[in-house]
Each structure stands twice: as C-alpha cells, then as structure tokens.
C-alpha cells in the first residue's frame, strides 16, 4: 500500500556479513564514538554557581512592588488570590493608621501576605489581575529548601527592598 506522503523506507533484511557477525569492528566504532564524547566539552550549566540567561518573559519568584515614593503598592484587594488557579495566595488586610502614609500608598494594605511556593505554578495570573501593579514575577528561581513550611513566603521575602537602600 502506498502511503499518502509517498515516503517509504524499504527495509532490507540482508544476512549479516562476516565482518558484521564477529561484531568487533562495530564495537571499535562504538568505542571511538564514546571516546570522542569523552573529550567533548560538557553541556552542563553548573547551576547555583553559573546561571543560564533568563528569557525576557521568564516568571520567577514574586515581588511586591513599591511606588516612586517607596510605599507599598498593594491594597489587599484580594484579586490576585481570587485569580490564582492554585490557590497559593492568602492575605490579611489592615487599615492604614494616620502617620503610616509613608509606608502604604492606599488606605487599606496587606498586613500579612503569603504565597505558598509549593502550590504556585508560576502562571502569572496574579500579576495580570493586580489593579495596582503591585505584584510581578520578576525574581529568580525559587530556591530549594528542606521543610514545607519554609516554602510559604511572607512579606519579609516578597516585598521589594525600600528605595533608600
């Protein structure tokens, strides 16, 4: 039967020649190939010491942004948590007290903001949902750790460093 593509490979089952049957030439050929690879440069990127360049739209660890005056942008509206398909985000909101205007941009802010990095699938939907441009996945790869509880990142790890530093 002719196939649609008209591509066909005819397989011939020729009896093996003597050289093929004693198998040694083939072994020598194989050995020379592996020896060639032995001296080839390895393709490994030695990860923690060396890093591959990230692509432009790489999504890594989240960071909670600050505005031009160094105030936290997040207003704890919860849209990111709502949009998160992995339900990785939880937060507790609080009201800004007088005198804290330097710290928080809006009247309501996130007193606690936690992302469970084991649940997060780095889809970036939180980033898209945020009306305040407060969260971006512009960080590094989330590092490995030993305990599950250490993968719940709080504000101490997520919020950007203050401007004056």
């Amino acid at each position, binding site marked *: 039967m002719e196939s649609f593509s008209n591509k066909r490979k005819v397989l011939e089952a020729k009896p093996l020649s003597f050289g093929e049957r004693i198998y040694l030439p083939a*072994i020598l050929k*194989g*050995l020379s*190939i*592996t*020896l060639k*690879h*032995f*001296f*080839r*440069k*390895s*393709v*490994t990127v*030695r990860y923690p010491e060396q890093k591959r360049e990230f692509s432009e739209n790489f999504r890594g660890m989240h960071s909670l942004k600050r505005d031009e005056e160094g105030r936290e942008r997040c207003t704890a509206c919860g849209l990111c948590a709502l949009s998160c398909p992995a339900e990785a985000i939880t937060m507790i909101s609080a009201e800004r007290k007088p005198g804290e205007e330097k710290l928080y941009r809006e009247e309501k802010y996130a007193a606690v903001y936690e992302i469970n990095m084991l649940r997060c699938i780095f889809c970036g939907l939180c980033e898209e949902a945020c009306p305040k441009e407060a969260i971006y996945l512009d960080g590094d790869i989330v590092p490995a750790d030993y305990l599950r509880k250490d993968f719940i990142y709080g504000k101490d790890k997520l919020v950007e460093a203050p401007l004056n530093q």
Partner: protein
Amino acid sequence: MGTTDILVKFALIVVIFLISLLIAMYSTYAERKIAAFMQDRVGPNRAGPFGILQPLADGAKMFMKEEIIPANSNKFLFIVGPSLAIMTACIGSAVIPWGQTLVIGGHPIDLQVTDINVGVLYIFGVVSLGVYGIMIGGWASNNKYSLLGAIRAASQNISYEIAMGLSIIALLMTTGTLSLGKIAADQHGFWSHGWFTWNVFKQPLGFLIFIVCAFAETNRAPFDLPECETELVGGYHTEYSSMKLGFYLFAEYINMFVSSAVMATLYFGGYNFPGMHYLADAGVAQNWITIIGVIALFAKIFFFIFFFMWVRWTLPRFRYDQLMDLGWKSLIPLAIANIVITGVVMNYFIK
C-alpha cells in the same frame, strides 16, 4: 623465614589490601565520572573539589542505611553471601607480582605476596569461588528476582570459565610455566629476539578471548545480566541494603581491579616496560627500575579499568541467549582453535 621476612610479607599484604580497597573506592568515582564525560555531563562534583570525596560520602551513606534482612530469608546465608563475595575478591591479589625485587638495606624484598608455582590455577580457583557469593546471596534472599539473577550469574560464570581456561592453556603453552612471577619475568623488556616479549603479541586471539571472558566473569556490561536493573529489579542483590549491598558493589570493583592486574600480568608484561635495558645499562639503580616497573604495572591496570568502564558505557547488554551463544558457540571453539594454532606454530615455525 625469619621474623623480619614475616613482618615484611605482612606489611606487603596490608599495603596491597589497602591499595585494592582504595582503588575499588575510587573506581566507583571513576565510573561515575567516566560515564558522565562520555555522556557530555559533569558527574559528581559536590563533595570536595571535583567531587573527589564522593566515595567517602557514599561509604558513609551505605553504613548509615538501615540494615534489612527479609523475614523469610535464610539469615545465616544471607550474611555469608556478601562476606564471601568480598573475601574472594580480595584474596585474588595475593599471587600478582607487583614488581621486581626491592633491595632495602641489603635485604631483598619480593613485591609479590607469594609466588606459588600454580599461580594461574590459584587465580582460577578464586575467580570461580566468586560465584558462590552471588549464588548464595541470591538464593538466601528468597526472592525470585534474586534467584534468577543468581542462576544467571552461575551459569554465565561457568560457561565463560571454560573459554577462559582454554585461552589460558594456549598462553601456558608459550610460557611453559604456571607461576605468575615467572610469566611476568619472562616478558622482560619489550623487544627481544626479533619479536615483542609481551604475551599479547604472541597470543592476540587468546588475549581477545580472555578479555571477553574477564568481562563476563566480573559481571560487567555488556555481560551484566545477573544484575540487570531493567529485567530483574536489581538481580541477585535485590533484597540487600546498607553495607551488605555495599560489599557486593565493592566486590565487583575489586574483581575488576584484580582481573585488570591479571590481564596486565599475563598479557601486557606485568611490571615490565619498554626501555628497561637502557635504564639498567645507563646505571640507574635497580630499585628505581623496580619502582618505575610498579608504576608501569599500575598504569596498565588503570588503563584496563578505564577500558572496562569505557566498554560499559558504549555497549548495550546482551540478551541471555546471545550471551550463551557467544560463550559456547564462538568463544570455546575459537579458544580450541587457538590452542591448535599455537601448537602448530610452536612446533613448525619457532624452533
């Protein structure tokens, strides 16, 4: 034999034992590194510079793992298995001539633990004992995969021992002695009387058969059927854990070291190296020549160990029937033909 002699022998035994253990330890590291290089990877590089401490870390891990003895196993034999494997692996090195005689303070020291006049037979005996460790371990664990692995190992070793023995017979016809010390001494230098002195040039076919059989005897790829992970879970050591497993793996590497040493001694001139005469004529002290000889022997051994690994990461495993086919239908007839050819050549051409 005076007390000094005994002490010297004892020290030599300890040194050889330690060297075999050290080499076996670093063979595991070399194996992983060579595998990595051949696959364009880096290999272990975390423990120490270039991962040089990896064997120590592996050893510590092995010792700290939980010791499991299956409930329905034969407990005594279950422990005897790995002990036997490692013991037979270690005693093989006793008859290898590691070098010529060192003279220290007017006192000659033979760098061979014992030069028994049936050294080759001794090696054979020890090698065939090696299969007991595997067989007993596999049987005692009361697990079908272990048993299958053990049976495979036994039949494979027995089949290849025949071809190995026959290839050795041809060698013995040319050397005329069974003593490894004498065989090594006869291959002095590199070239004399218009031909190479090393036995590999007198017995190329015999060497080829021998090395194939050595691969099979040490259960190395492409003949690693007793422990093929893809078919038998883990082969004869499926049920083993902790250092008992470690002993099995270790025994394999020691076996590799010993059989490399045997190959180097029987076929590649042992401690002899090209240009020995010139060094002796130039007035270099005999002790230095001996030391260079030891280094040469170890270089040959390391090359063979490398070769073992090189082949392992090149060739796929044989199917079981192919293995038996190769052993019984190719190697044994070839080995017999080799004996005949050797006899004819010795009788009619070399006189």
